[in-house]
């Protein structure tokens, strides 16, 4: 059975279960970050261990060695490490990516996500007092995208519904956009920009922190990696986009909102 180990997972034994869901179980590394044992539906990532058809409920501990993992001190799997580094995009790639992502926001309806920041017609979905308060906060934060991206991300931190608040996914999207455009930027200021955003957006929710950390390190999940390469190579774009959007609830859309908004603002000619 194929077992894939993310590049950022250190050798050792992990026993502190943070949370357990149908497709993934999370172990705490420390207060800030997690490693995840996931099935192929979730897919790989720098902090993921992918085991086909894994039954998350039965997993109580995992020991990571150089080319082997051991579950519950008893079942051992051969594994290999894999890295998913963000590809560097050219301006043409960015144009293609923006064109690919645009219809996603128009198709997203009746989900309390940040897609309304791209498609205003979705604002009426937010009906309750709380939902309207979220809407206003998000709009306010978004106004700073052009003039003060650091402030924009600070205001988005921890904002919104879901286990990973929408704003955290948005910030991970912005950090990812910064990683994708490394070759296109020239100002020194931009290298501190990424670090500033990272420092100000890491919080006490390790599930959110994982996505922000990975984005800051210039890496990404397997599903995002496949999507970005599909766009670069003009091959299987729809399939990979669907695969990416099908993980989680609004997290993919919120992430793509941050990614799209940043690229559109700064790199769309």
């Amino acid at each position: 059975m194929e077992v894939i180990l993310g590049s950022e997972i250190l050798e050792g034994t992990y026993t502190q279960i943070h949370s357990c869901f149908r497709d993934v179980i999370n172990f705490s590394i420390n207060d800030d970050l997690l490693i995840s044992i996931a099935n192929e539906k979730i897919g790989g990532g720098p902090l993921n261990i992918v085991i086909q058809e894994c039954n998350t409920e039965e997993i109580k501990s995992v020991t990571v060695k150089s080319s082997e993992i051991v579950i519950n001190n008893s079942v051992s799997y051969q594994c290999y490490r894999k890295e998913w580094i963000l590809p560097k995009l050219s301006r043409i790639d960015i144009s293609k990516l923006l064109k690919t992502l645009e219809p996603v926001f128009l198709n997203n309806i009746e989900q309390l996500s940040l897609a309304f920041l791209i498609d205003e017609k979705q604002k009426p979905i937010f009906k309750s007092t709380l939902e309207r308060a979220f809407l206003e906060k998000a709009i306010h934060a978004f106004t700073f995208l052009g003039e003060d991206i650091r402030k924009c991300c600070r205001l988005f931190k921890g904002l919104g519904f879901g286990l990973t608040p929408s704003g955290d996914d948005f910030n991970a999207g912005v950090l990812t956009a910064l990683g994708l455009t490394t070759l296109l930027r020239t100002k020194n200021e931009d290298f501190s920009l990424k670090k500033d955003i990272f420092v100000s957006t890491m919080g006490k929710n390790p599930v959110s922190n994982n996505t922000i950390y990975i984005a800051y390190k210039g890496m990404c999940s397997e599903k995002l990696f496949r999507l970005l390469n599909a766009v670069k190579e003009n091959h299987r774009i729809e399939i990979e986009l669907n695969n990416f959007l099908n993980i989680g609830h609004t997290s993919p859309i919120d992430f793509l909102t941050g990614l799209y908004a940043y690229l559109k603002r700064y790199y769309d000619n």
Partner: protein
Amino acid sequence: MIIKGIIKTGEYYDSVSLMLIAKELNSFDGIADSGVVMGTVENKSILVSGGLFPQEFENAGDADLLIAIKAENNDAYEKAIAKLDDLFKKLRNKSSESSDFVPKSLEGALGQIPDANLSLISVAGKYAASEARKALEKGLHVMLFSDNVSIDDELELKKIGKEKKLLVMGPDCGTAIINGVPLAFANVVSRGDIGIVAASGTGLQEVSCIIDKNNCGVSQAIGTGGRDVKKDIGGIMFLEAMNALENDPGTKVIVLVSKPPHPEVLDKITSLIKDFSKPVVAILIGGNSEQIEKNGAIAAKNLSEAGEIAAALSKKISVESVTEAIKNKNIEIEKLGIKLAGNSKGKYLRGLYSGGTLCDESQLILKPLIGNTYSNTPLSPEFQLKDLFKSEENTIIDLGDDDFTVGRPHPMIDFSLRKKRMIEEAQNKEVAVILLDIVLGFGSNLDPAGEIVPTIKEVLKINSSLNIICSITGTKNDPQGYNAVKKSLSDSGAIVMDSNADASLLAGTIIKNIK
């Protein structure tokens, strides 16, 4: 009103569960408002803005789950909390509730049901072919719901199926009824002696429902997937299915449903028909029916007619009497259309479809009445919509096409895209008719009337002279309840027709006669 809350520390629930909890809370008696969010600084501030911040939330942290409740009184609050506790318990125990073994492989499943003889496969395309191959090797018929299977794989699988005398329905086969059992998207149709072979999902559904409406029933309804009748696949399964029905003692009438097959495939089909002992009705949507008729089959003009003719043959009623009745019915529909045109403003039609075959059929029926229609799946390439989200003149859209289903469920399940589009179209004063298909049955939205009626009412509020015309593909025994759905739609102001063909004829007649 009181505002209170609970903090859950160290308990984590996925976002969908949190959304469901929030939805449930708001439905409890005596609860005016609520919020379910993680305890971040920003979320606490939106709770404050929303008037939902009890004092106890002050020291909550990022990783705490906050549940804020605004209740009419303490009693309502306590009742809500008790129900909420049950809900959380269910969520925590969800995966360990049942100790039943859930198989994770075909072998495991066969271990549980050793005499299973059909495998319905719905996995990502890249895995589907190998799963289908395994199933065939174990002697199972296969229904391949999955798409994104290569043509080479499809051809190989169907050759294996033919050799082993096993059905390979699909890929991209969404509908079948085998031995009276509806599979995937299918309707609850009476059992009878009419067999259907279909290279079209909603085509199969429409025909089988019309058969049921005419108090007849279906012996078997075999889907083949749309590609089967193309040159590459050569109609392998279509022909096998035809032969199976010809040899099935429970089948007395055979109906063939497809878009136009490749000419070589059509030759094979008609060659078979010639030697059949049972009557054959064929509907090739958009195809030339001459060859079919020359070889002894009855060519129907549309899906509804195919169902009615098949029912007539089953009941041993003269086909001519049925076609005559259809002609008279069409005259009445045209009269109604002319009358409605007199009260209509605007000049354009907008069709918003969930079924691809129904969308195609509608365009064909409308063509002689109002000319070509713009579409994302047009009859002629020059009528391809430039922007899928902006209608032009007379437009009919297949919302089930890939462009609209990226990252979202099929429009037969999720109406939200269609509802949004209805509102947009209603705001355009040039629109006179909105045409919709409502498809019932297993797999489809369980409350289509509940979903779409508020939008119909809103549309008519925006433009009271708009004609909203619906057809319902369904039967009285479908889970949604055909009669209840029809009544709700009619009460909301929509005009409900018995078939897509009737609805399209009515819509086209209105547009044609508007002055």
